[in-house]
């Protein structure tokens, strides 16, 4: 009973915070609001930790029933939460990193007059995200799924006075919604098939039957949902634009938590995916393509947050590759480590931006390592973590995926390795351009306050040691995370990395050597730079194409946005105005015309009317006569 209450408190605390802050947003100061929000999410974290401590993995999991939600006909969907290894993992990430980012935001947002609103929305996001990961059935997850979408919309457009930000917010929401169509259809289909949406029941029933068309359809729809939320091809273009929001938002929503919802969902329904290898193949290749395309774009970005955004998309691609190969625990592992180091990087970037008074263009940075030391060190840690330098958290998680890739096919390994090198290159390019060389900007850099640097330091530590969570046998560990997650998702039990130790060492060796070479290359090109290459117009074609993000935004604009506006306008001016309305007017015109005909009979001549009446009487009499 006590744990039930605790479970319910985990999502409810941030919700309460959101409601309080939203209603008192004009009375609270930024610091009080931030403190309250942080305290609440931190309490959630504490509750999660308590739950985690008290959790016995062997039981599989518990469902906490809160309320009957939709119950009609044969449908019975309760508002219920599920506590198992998977949701606990996500809860810890969400509340833990969430708390740090809340704390960070106190410093970052203290000058903004709408800080209380910001914290309310941040708390609301935490609530939605917790609902997403804790839901005991698809529909509860969908509550969170849409909730985080809404919060993402609100937070991207937080500075609503700038039209471009609003556009970015709208774009994010709409693209997410396109994915949601898939999600809804998947839920409808699963409900039709299983008569319930409870994860536990579906996973029990779904075993058997390979390549059932219905399952393929359901999993594909789920995957479409995941592509929207987790920014995969073809729906990833919203994520870089989403950097319009305040940086803590980018860190929390668009790096650490929300964007991993798609991966969470697929792991949640891993049993379904196991019975649909076709879908898994599609996931694999879309993940690979996303990882490479996003990484390539990252090479040429000049906005510090945009680089990180494309890096996020690319890393998410890696996670999908893992899912596509059925390496669910590897994906979750990467989700976790990525949450650490990407949150760190974003917060670091935020600290840089804060230090430079809002400057985001790396062409006007440089040489900052002296002036903002803590930021530099932590950012450096983040960079080496994401690049997968040995013994960093990113090293373990990414290598695990690449090892699975090699097992799948060496070509895939090659592609993944190439992607990893690209990652290393653009991350170090970023690092060198921002912190090395000479300062090219005008503002006076100053180190951020303690509320901002503490989260950085904590995250830096986590980025370093995060690998321990799932230390492979090769390094003397026994993959604790994998075994923990097994209790929640059966499919993980069947994951098996069948490579010999030699092969693994060799692969690691190759990777490490190449990564160091890449770093050296990047150092040579960027570390001493005082200026940066010129306009895009001077670049060769391919380079320009990549620098312009493969012109995907333009493509979508030409293919969808503008035609949609055109259709909308013309449906109204042409179809509605010239077809529908005239048809309706036709009814009136017909009535008028008929009236015009009948009107002529109304001569007003009394004797004519009398005669007509007489004729009518005769006719009626005759009819009566005939019918007798």
């Amino acid at each position, binding site marked *: 009973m006590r744990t039930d209450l605790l479970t319910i408190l985990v999502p409810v605390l941030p919700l309460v915070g959101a409601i309080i802050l939203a209603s008192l947003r004009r009375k609270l100061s930024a610091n009080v609001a931030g403190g309250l929000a942080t305290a609440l999410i931190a309490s959630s974290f504490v509750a999660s930790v308590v739950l985690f401590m008290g959790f016995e993995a062997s039981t599989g999991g518990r469902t906490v029933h809160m309320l009957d939600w939709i119950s009609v006909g044969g*449908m019975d969907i309760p508002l219920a939460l599920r506590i198992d290894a998977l949701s606990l993992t996500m809860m810890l990430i969400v509340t833990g990193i969430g708390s740090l980012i809340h704390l960070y935001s106190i410093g970052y947002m203290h000058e903004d007059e709408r800080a209380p609103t910001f914290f309310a929305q941040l708390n609301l996001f935490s609530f939605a995200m917790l609902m997403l990961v804790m839901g005991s059935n698809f529909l509860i997850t969908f509550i969170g799924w*849409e909730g985080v979408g809404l919060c993402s919309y609100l937070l991207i457009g937080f500075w609503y006075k700038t039209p471009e930000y609003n556009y970015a917010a709208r774009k994010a929401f709409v693209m997410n919604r396109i994915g949601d169509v898939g999600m809804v259809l998947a839920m409808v289909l699963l409900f039709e098939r299983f008569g319930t949406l409870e994860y536990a029941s579906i996973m029990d029933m779904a075993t058997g039957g390979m390549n059932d068309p219905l399952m393929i359809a359901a999993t594909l729809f789920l995957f479409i949902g995941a592509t929207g939320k987790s920014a995969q091809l073809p729906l990833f273009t919203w994520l870089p634009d989403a950097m319009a929001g305040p940086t803590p938002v980018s860190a929390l929503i668009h790096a650490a938590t929300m964007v991993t919802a798609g991966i969470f969902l697929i792991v949640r329904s891993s049993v379904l995916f196991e019975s649909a290898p076709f879908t898994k193949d599609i996931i694999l290749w879309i993940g690979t393509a996303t990882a490479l395309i996003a990484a390539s774009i990252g090479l040429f970005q000049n906005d510090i947050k945009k680089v990180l955004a494309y890096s996020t998309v690319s890393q998410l691609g890696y996670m999908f590759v893992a899912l596509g190969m059925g390496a669910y625990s590897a994906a979750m592992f990467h989700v976790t480590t990525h949450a650490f180091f990407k949150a760190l990087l974003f917060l670091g970037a935020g600290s840089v931006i804060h230090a430079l008074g809002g400057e985001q263009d790396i062409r006007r940075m440089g040489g900052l390592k002296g002036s903002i030391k803590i930021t530099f060190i932590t950012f450096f840690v983040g960079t080496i973590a994401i690049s997968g330098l040995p013994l960093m958290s990113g090293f373990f998680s990414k290598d695990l995926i690449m090892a699975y890739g090699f097992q799948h096919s060496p070509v895939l390994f090659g592609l993944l390795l190439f992607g990893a090198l690209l990652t290393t290159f653009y991350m170090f390019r970023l690092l060198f351009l921002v912190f090395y060389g000479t300062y090219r900007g005008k503002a006076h850099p100053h180190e951020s306050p303690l509320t901002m640097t503490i989260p950085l330091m904590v995250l830096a530590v986590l980025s370093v040691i995060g690998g321990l969570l799932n230390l492979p046998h090769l390094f003397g560990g026994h993959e604790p995370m994998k075994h923990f997650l097994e209790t929640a998702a059966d499919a993980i039990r069947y994951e098996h990395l069948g490579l010999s130790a030699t092969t693994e060492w060799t692969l690691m060796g190759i990777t490490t050597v190449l990564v160091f070479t890449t770093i050296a290359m990047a150092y040579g090109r960027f570390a001493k730079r005082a200026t940066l290459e010129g306009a895009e117009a001077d670049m060769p074609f391919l380079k320009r194409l990549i620098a312009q993000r493969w012109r995907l935004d333009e493509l979508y604009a030409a293919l969808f946005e503008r035609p949609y506006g055109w259709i909308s306008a013309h449906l109204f001016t042409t179809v509605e105005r010239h077809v529908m309305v005239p048809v309706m007017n036709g009814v009136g015109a017909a009535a008028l015309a008929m009236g015009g005909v009948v009107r002529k009979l109304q001569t007003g001549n009394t004797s004519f009317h009398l005669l007509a009446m007489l004729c009518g009487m005769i006719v009626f009499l005759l009819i009566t006569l005939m019918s007798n």
Partner: protein
Amino acid sequence: MIVALLLLIPFITALALMFLRPTQQAKNVALISTLASLGVVLFAWSAYTGGTVIHYNMDWVPSWGLRFVMGYDGVGLLMLILTAMVFPFIIAAGYGEKLQHPSLVNALLLFTQTFLFGVFLAQNTLLFYIFYELSLIPVFFFLLYWGGEHRRAITVKFFIYTLLGGLSLLFGIIYCLGQGEGFNGDFATIGSLNIPTSVQIWLFWVLFLAFAIKLPIFPFHSWQPDTYAMAPLQGTMVLGAVMLKMGLYGIIKIVLPIVPQGVVHWQETVILLALIGAIYGGIIAFRQSDLKRLIAFSSLSHVGLLCAGLFAWNSYGVSGSLYQAFAHALLVVCMLYISGAMKERVGSSEMGAMGGLKVRTPRLAALFLLVLANAVALPLTQSFVGEWLMFAGLWQVNGGLALAAVSTIVLGAIYMLFAYQRVMLGPDKWALEMTDATTRDHFVLVPLIAITLFLGVYPGPILELVDVPVQQLLSSLSLN
């Protein structure tokens, strides 16, 4: 007693307002009257235990065997709750309108309420028809005398078009009355009418046309945008929130029981038309510059979905549709109220003239956002429950149709967010001081939003109400 009260409270108040003309107190009197009606309905709800409650059953036209039967079942009660619940807010919305002769305006609104109650209380087809057409009369005068630009032409168009449907319905009803032995149009015996399938196939359209125009379904919708845009705010609210629900109710109470085979025969056609309307309305709404016209097209979109869900004719579809009808009524009132509130402040409902209003009216913006969440059917709002049930119902009919239906959630997001952006967001360009949400705005919007959220989290009370009647209806259909 309940029936008599529901009909008499608004009717007598309306008469009093009409003859006494208390200009100053008219709105207060009307508000008290609607609140009293709401109280009566809530009492009826609390006392309702299931089945059909008949309050009056007496001879009406003995030579034709017609009887005067008044009462309600779960579905009727839902509609009564809906009507009673939105009317106080509609009256309250009038406090901001500066219309001439407020006592007459409120009298007309209360007359409308009386007849709407009559529609949902009638348990006889002909009685239903009479109230159905009666309810049009006060609205007609309201639109004709208090409407905006081109009110005469648009009102007459609307009237002719709706009456055309009504005529067709009357013909159908009379045809049916002439058919069965001993059939007198009572809802209780309506299912016993055994009309040959070949007849049902054309009779379906005769009966359905009236409701298709009222709702409106796709090719019959073109009266709607102009009328919504032209009508005074309260008129649009009545039309959008309650009057179109009469169409839904009529389909359930009349079309389905009389021509079940016809319904089965035309099911996919109607769903298809409805969904075309839903998508068509959703697409057009995106580029509308007038907020009220946008709401009209969004309503077309929502209603298309409603009708599609209804015509799934399974328990999810019908329950969802009814639930959504309730949600839609609240939603329309909220949206229109906000458009009115914006017009009050900016002076026009053109969105081109707005923008950046959030700076001046942050509370109103927040309320708008909550309404928007309901409009795009975010989970934990009322609309989501309805839409989810409808999607589940439609899937059982046809996967492709379900896909089309689900795609409307994207269209909804596109036009609603764009509208929100055009009205509220963007740089502050307003030199003048503007009042933020007033007490009146709170009085209207906050309770409505609260109901919306409450019923989104806990839809049980409403779903329970419709569950049993819907099951009965569907089981009687499968018997045929």
